[in-house]
Structure formats: structure tokens, C-alpha cells
């Protein structure tokens, strides 16, 4: 009996489990293999929708489905928190004394936000990295009547790298529609020396920032927030006053993988770029936000990694070599990028080929909307 345990019921965990039971159908039906997903709440959340809650176009209840409803019937689901991984004994302990043995472990444990790492973040800064936070940002935007908006990034890496730029463009568009743009200064703070990590995307986004009158501040690594003077201060010594502060919170990987000795304190799992094995542990694979790969932390990354993990784990279970187009991961990622005014573009890239985003148009914006609406029927079930 080969026991495969998948930690995490996000995009990566759900898709890899569904792909695995297809590949191992006969083994599972004969009782020679099992696939178990462990998810803390048993709920699958479509996180890219949070940004649209903040922009007033989405409702939290539409972003949530039961994890069970997305899994093939052959996948077992354990709802509970994975409290401990013992890599020597090959066990995962869940809260409530449940212990799962594994032969193959797949870590799809994602990332978590840690706003508490920056003093006053939770009382002063808005963000859109959760449904409740996004709804609070929506309320703040509704109440906004002009002034200074500062949008920035309070730690790298973070989920969905284009998101703060997208939100800047969408807020700017909204303010114009509400007749508030002339009463508003907008500032965008990037921790690095340009607007975006990938140079070609930066070259696309920087003129859009200029055209929309959003001032770019480079090398702005958020250090402190002064709630009395309403100032955000950078490590580099710059300070910006704000009336509305929107910051991407710092992110970390899951604590359970740090406690298991699999990841450094940041929580990002050292992962082979092509095999997606956790380094030093051929029986453990990682995908999605959980890895330390030099790629976007995004559902799209997990989406394209999952077939590779499924192929490699299925091969290990069957005692054969991985084969076919999913034998190795080449870093493929594809995601839409909103630029406001009903337009978007597409970022498609891999380890060797940086994105060459097409000129923003309405088609790519609509593509993103359609993708968001059809997500439940496509990605988790492995249909695209």
C-alpha cells in the first residue's frame, strides 16, 4: 500500500490530488494506493477574488466552496490542522491525535500573511489579502474623499506579484470615475529599483504609472508606520504621509514545515527547480506558494506545477521513471494583469523566457473575468 498525503487544499493540493487519482486509478481501486488531502478548514478559497472585493465587484461568499465538492470521490479528505511532520517516521500528526503515515508527502501548504511583524500595520494599513481585509479596504475607499493614497509592499516575496500595481491602476480608475482624481495624490512604493521584479513587466507598467499620474518610489522597503503623524517610513530613510495606506503585508511559509526542519525560518521550502522535490527528501514534493522557487507566488504557478508533481509521484508509486511532457517543470506561469480602464494584459513566462506582455486591451481584462467565473469548473478538477 502506497500512501500519498497532500497537505493543503488550495489550488496546488486540490489539483495534484485529483490528477493523482486519475493516474493511479487501478492501484487505488485495488487498495494498493491511497491519496489523502489534509485541509485545515475543509474550505477552498479562490484568493484572486479578494482584490475584486476591494474594488466592489465581488462577494466573499462567491469565493468559497467546500473542498470535498472539488475533490474526486477517490480522494480522502481529512479536515484538521497538520500540527507536526515527522520526516524520520514519515508521519503527519493532526490536531486531535490523528496520525497519518505516508510514503509520499506533497506539501501544498501555501503562504500566510504576518501583518503583525510591522508595528501599527493592523490598525493603520489596509490590504486585500483576505476577504475581511478587502471588505474593510472597500469601506475605506467608499469613505475616501480625496487626499494622499500610498500603496506599497511591506515584504517580499508575496502572493500575486502584480496585485499591488493592479490595485493602484483600478483605484486610480475608480477615483477618476468618482470625480476625486484631481483631489488625490497617488504614490506607489516598490522595494526594488524598479516598479516590478521582472524587467519586461516593469517596462510595461512604468509608463502606465506615469500616464495615470501615480508617483513611483523605488527602493522603498517599509520599515515603520507612524500612526500619530500618518507617515510610512522606509528602511532607506524616505517617509511618505498618507490619508489612505494600502500595503501588501509580509508573508511567510507554513510554520509546520519550519518546525519539521524542512524550511528555514522564512518558511519557504528549498525546492528543486525541475523535479519539485524538497531538497534532501526525494519522498517529499512541494508546489505553489510553499516553495522557494524564483517564481510568482500565484495559483497559476501551482496550476502548472501540479501535473509535474502528479507525474513524478505516480512514477515513484509505480516504480518507473517520470515520462511525458510533465516529467520536469520548466517554470511555466501564466496570469492576467489588470491595468484599469477595462483593460488588461497577459504575463506568460518560464525559467528561461521572461514575459513579453502584449499591449493592454479589453480582451485580456475580459479573459481574467471569465477565468475567475469559470475557475470552479476548470482548474481544481484538472480540466485546463
Amino acid at each position, binding site marked *: 500500500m502506497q500512501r500519498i498525503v497532500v497537505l493543503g487544499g488550495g489550488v496546488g493540493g486540490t489539483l495534484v490530488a485529483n490528477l493523482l487519482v486519475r493516474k493511479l486509478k487501478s492501484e487505488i481501486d485495488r487498495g494498493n494506493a491511497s491519496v489523502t488531502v489534509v485541509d485545515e478548514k475543509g474550505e477552498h478559497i479562490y484568493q484572486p477574488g479578494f482584490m475584486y472585493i476591494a474594488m466592489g465587484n465581488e462577494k466573499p461568499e462567491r469565493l468559497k466552496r467546500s473542498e470535498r465538492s472539488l475533490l474526486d470521490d477517490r480522494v480522502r479528505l481529512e479536515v484538521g490542522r497538520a500540527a507536526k511532520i515527522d520526516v524520520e517516521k514519515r508521519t503527519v500528526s493532526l490536531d486531535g491525535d490523528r496520525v497519518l503515515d505516508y510514503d509520499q508527502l506533497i506539501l501544498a501548504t501555501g503562504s500566510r500573511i504576518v501583518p503583525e511583524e510591522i508595528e501599527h500595520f493592523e490598525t493603520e494599513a489596509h490590504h486585500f489579502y483576505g476577504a475581511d481585509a478587502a471588505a474593510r479596504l472597500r469601506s475605506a475607499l467608499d469613505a475616501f474623499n480625496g487626499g494622499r493614497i500610498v500603496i506599497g509592499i511591506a515584504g*517580499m516575496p508575496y502572493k500575486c506579484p502584480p496585485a499591488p500595481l493592479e490595485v493602484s491602476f483600478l483605484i486610480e480608475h475608480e477615483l477618476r470615475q468618482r470625480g476625486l482624481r484631481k483631489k488625490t495624490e497617488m504614490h506607489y512604493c516598490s*522595494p*526594488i*529599483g524598479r516598479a516590478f*521584479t521582472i524587467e519586461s513587466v516593469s517596462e510595461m507598467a512604468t509608463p502606465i504609472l506615469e500616464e495615470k499620474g501615480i508617483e513611483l518610489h*523605488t*527602493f522603498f*522597503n517599509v520599515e515603520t508606520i507612524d500612526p500619530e503623524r500618518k507617515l510610512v517610513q522606509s*528602511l*532607506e*530613510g524616505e517617509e511618505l504621509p498618507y490619508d489612505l495606506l494600502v500595503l501588501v503585508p509580509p508573508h511567510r511559509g507554513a510554520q509546520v514545515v519550519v518546525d519539521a526542519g524542512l524550511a528555514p525560518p522564512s518558511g519557504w521550502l528549498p525546492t528543486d527547480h525541475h523535479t519539485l522535490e524538497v531538497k534532501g527528501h526525494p519522498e517529499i514534493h512541494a508546489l505553489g506558494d510553499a516553495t522557494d522557487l*524564483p517564481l510568482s507566488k500565484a495559483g497559476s504557478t501551482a496550476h502548472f506545477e501540479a501535473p509535474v508533481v502528479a507525474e513524478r509521484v505516480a512514477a515513484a508509486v509505480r516504480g518507473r521513471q517520470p515520462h511525458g511532457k510533465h516529467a520536469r517543470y520548466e517554470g511555466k506561469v501564466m496570469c492576467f494583469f489588470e491595468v484599469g480602464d477595462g483593460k488588461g494584459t497577459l504575463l506568460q513566462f518560464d525559467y528561461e523566457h521572461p514575459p513579453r506582455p502584449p499591449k493592454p486591451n479589453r480582451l485580456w481584462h475580459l479573459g481574467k473575468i471569465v477565468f475567475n467565473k469559470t475557475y470552479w469548473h476548470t482548474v481544481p478538477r484538472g480540466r485546463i
Partner: protein
Amino acid sequence: MNVLEVPINRTIDARGSYCPGPLMELIRAIREGQVGDMIAVWSSDSGSRLDIPKWIEKAGHRLVGVETRDGYDEIIVEKLR
């Protein structure tokens, strides 16, 4: 001792990491370090030769030197504030 013969308080081996990884590692070390610390960054990403000195200038630290070594660059920074 490094090629610049400067006593180093902390070395960050960011080889194999891509932009902005080496810069972010340096920023973490600057946050954790003391004024006067000499920090060496080893980076195999060619972008670091440009990005890191620019950041050092903006952040008010001192670029002690940049040396090309075997397949990577060593960038030495003194924390000034």
C-alpha cells in the same frame, strides 16, 4: 579574508538566487546588523552588480567594493546607519 582584504562580519551566500533575492537577503542582514558591520553578498545574478550598489547609495550605506570571483560577484557593504 576576501579578495578586498576587508574583515567581514557576515557573508550572505545568495548564489543561485535570482533578482531580487540577493538584494532582499542584504536588506535582511542590514536590518539585523550593527552600524560598522561589513557585509559581503555573494551573488551569481548579474543584475546584483547594478541593483545592489544603487540600493546602497539610496539607503546611505557604503559600497566597499565589487569583485568578480569564480562564477559570482562578491559585493561588500559597510552599514553606516
